[in-house]
């Protein structure tokens, strides 16, 4: 292509004969039909690549990293998740158990030596990097595949996992 943009629209001068006139009509009709054929093929024949979101939900992979959930019954308050978190969004407070108190164990069989008083995650700060879940020794802190948790205020993004409401949320949404 030359550098000048002038020769894009140059028309040849041709004489219109009767045969050409007929040929033009045929060509116009046939190409229109061809185009409509492609359109109808896509209307009926081709599977759509998009999904109709609120009705149809995509099945996410099992290890998708979305809203965090902590099963506080199995938490041994080791603070490893809070240390690993790059944005410091996990707040834990715990109290050492009395020696004569009845021994508690996690589902995995580890002894619980601290009573958990607070386990709060500020989800608005969370960057979903997954570092906290990989260091968890009892695997009580997990990412769920639930991704719809928009809320109206920032305060609602703070999840206190000690409350029973959150347990219900877990049972309702994540199977």
């Amino acid at each position, binding site marked *: *292509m030359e*550098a*000048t*943009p002038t020769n*894009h629209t140059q028309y040849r001068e041709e004489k219109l004969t009767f045969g050409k006139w007929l040929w033009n009509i045929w060509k116009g009709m046939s190409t229109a039909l061809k185009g409509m054929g492609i359109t109808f093929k896509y209307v009926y024949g081709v599977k759509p*690549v998009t999904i109709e979101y609120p009705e149809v939900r995509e099945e*996410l*992979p099992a*290890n*998708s*990293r979305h809203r965090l959930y902590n099963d506080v019954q199995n938490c041994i308050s080791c603070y490893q998740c809070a240390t*690993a978190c*790059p944005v410091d969004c996990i707040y834990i407070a715990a109290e050492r158990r009395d020696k004569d108190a009845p021994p508690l164990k996690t589902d995995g069989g580890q002894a619980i030596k601290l009573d958990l008083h607070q386990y709060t995650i500020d989800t608005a700060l969370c*960057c*979903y*990097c*997954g*570092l906290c879940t*990989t260091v968890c020794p009892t695997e009580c802190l997990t*990412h769920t595949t639930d991704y719809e948790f928009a809320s109206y205020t920032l305060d609602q993004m703070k999840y206190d996992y000690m409350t029973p409401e959150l347990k219900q949320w877990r049972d309702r949404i994540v199977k």
Partner: protein
Amino acid sequence: MADTNLETKWIGDGADLEKIKSDLLTLNMGPQHPATHGVLRVEIQTDSEIVATARPHLGYLHRCMEKHSENLEFRQVIPYVDRMDYLAAMNMEHGYCLTVEKMLDVEIPRRAEYIRVMVAELQRVASHLMFFGVYAIDLGAFSPFLYAFQDREQILRIFEELSGARLLYNYIWIGGVWNDMTDDHLRRIGALVDDIEEKMKKYHALVGENHIFVGRTSNVGIMDKDYCYQYGGTGAVLRGAGVDWDLRKKRPYSIYEEFDFDVPVGEGTKGTLGDAWDRYWVRVREINESIKIIRQCLEGIEEGPIMGKVKKILKLPEGEVYMRTECPRGELGYHLISDGGKTPYRLKVKSSCFTHTSMLPEVAEGQMIADFVATIGSIDIVLGEVDR
């Protein structure tokens, strides 16, 4: 660079230029301009349709990543480097992990190296597909964007199953990778690259050879070899200027020296060497080269562990290191200064997008505004990496 005869070219020889010349008009392009790929603001002074001066204003996406990383442990920096170039996060992680590993006595298992190269190349394909679609949108064609996203989505789907996230993976770790690839993944990647290779031929015929596209991009935004060297342009910008320079060949890192692939360079097919079309054409051919590497990975991948032996509390020896890797948008360099502690003392990121943005003012002079949009699109900047 600037074509000084543009005025006569567009207005015609006969016109009295002095009479129709108007005052310079200051025009803000961005920060919310669809053609600036995010939040780049360019203050341009225009003489009617012709750009007289252009001044990029950066910093709208500045997140103090370098300051943050001074207070984070080496492993915790990885989620932050993801967020620099969010369209090529795997390559960002790969570069950072290689930088830290250069200071450590750690052996990376072969399987992890293969997986790293594979995901980095897949990410390069995804990033170039994104460029392909977005560049077409910049120039007014909408449907190539949808085609490109359809294929990119399949790559992201594989990444999501591997790492759990679609864009910001935190997948490549210091010493190896996080999750292992299953045989099912390998089979699907094999089928996917076959599919993309076949489709790219169709897409290129649809866009690259299109008369309007060629008219909009050829002889536009010419950056020749010396201009690239002066400004430090790398990646597809440098290769588009006809320089055979690819770090994967010239200074091989990871296991790239074992693979057989070509480095596509611009040839000035549709206009001048180093114009926007050449950069587009280099990127489209790079997709095929990446696919070549992925195929060799699929053949050569070995069984074994995916994590090397790295201490739980990571401390780097005192010293400094500079590591360059080839990312989809150009060379990415990490300059890491360590004082022997648990955190980097200073981490400086050499971003290719930043360098390419600094090339804009000179190339813009004397261009039409519409051509300037084509130039910005062709250098393919991501503002997250420019501002960091």
